[in-house]
């Protein structure tokens, strides 16, 4: 239930974007293959998560395009011994979030975790003009969860030459 509360506004917005696109496709001007303007931050509207149960959520924001970081592949791993073991791979949805929290309930355990961001394939898809190899390719973001009674939201703003992550809310 809490999950739905979190995702519903985003889903609604995403669905509306889809409708808008569908309507545009019916118009001759749009069908003529006009170059689309830079993507607005559609689908990146604030999602209130206050009061939700402990969990780890991520939100990727593309500061190169000024939009949600949609379609970003993230390998999510947990540190075991000296190495990081893959938990699962997620692709961010149209809002730049993963469909489900990375960790929730029983899976929300203290420990060291890594999110490996596949920024090279993301910006290749955006056809960004970058050197080869690009400055940032597979970017590891390593975080520690120490208090499992507290929810952690992890916004990541990323571009081809910089990235920032922080504890959000």
């Amino acid at each position, binding site marked *: 239930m809490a999950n739905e509360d979190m995702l519903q506004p985003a889903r609604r917005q995403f669905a509306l974007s889809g409708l808008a696109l569908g309507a545009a496709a019916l118009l001759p001007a749009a069908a003529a293959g006009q170059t689309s303007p830079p993507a607005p931050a559609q689908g990146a509207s604030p999602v209130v998560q206050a009061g939700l149960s402990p969990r780890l959520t991520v939100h990727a924001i593309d500061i190169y395009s000024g939009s949600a970081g949609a379609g970003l592949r993230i390998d999510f791993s947990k540190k075991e011994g000296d190495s990081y073991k893959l938990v699962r791979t997620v692709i961010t949805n149209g809002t730049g979030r993963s469909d489900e929290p990375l960790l929730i309930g029983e899976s929300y355990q203290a420990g060291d975790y890594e999110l490996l961001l596949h920024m090279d394939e993301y910006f290749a898809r955006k056809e960004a003009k970058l050197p080869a190899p690009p400055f940032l390719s597979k970017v590891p973001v390593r975080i520690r969860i120490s208090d499992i009674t507290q929810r952690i939201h992890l916004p990541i703003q990323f571009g081809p030459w910089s*990235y920032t992550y922080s504890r959000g809310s």
Partner: protein
Amino acid sequence: MTGITTHLLDIATGRPLADVQVELYDVATDPPTLLNKVRTNPDGRTDAPMLPAASARTGQFELRFHVGEYFKSAEALSDVVPVRFAVFDAAQHYHVPMLCAPWFFSTYRGS
């Protein structure tokens, strides 16, 4: 100037992070090869470049900032912060700073 340099700054205090361990690895090898391991000076920089100009080359590198020992906060979001990047032109200088607080970490290609 060529090679790799860094600068570690605490955005909560507006001060440099002094005496923090920073390492540079070659991550093209498996396991990564430690190239340099130093502590930041009072200005938050390293006395010598992490990768000196004489050793400048293309490749995949990773800086690791041991900020956990500095923040000493049980709730800090990260302990050792890696920044993995490519040097695609050895003739260029790569300045890769880290601006941070216990709950915020930011890096970019600087100059």
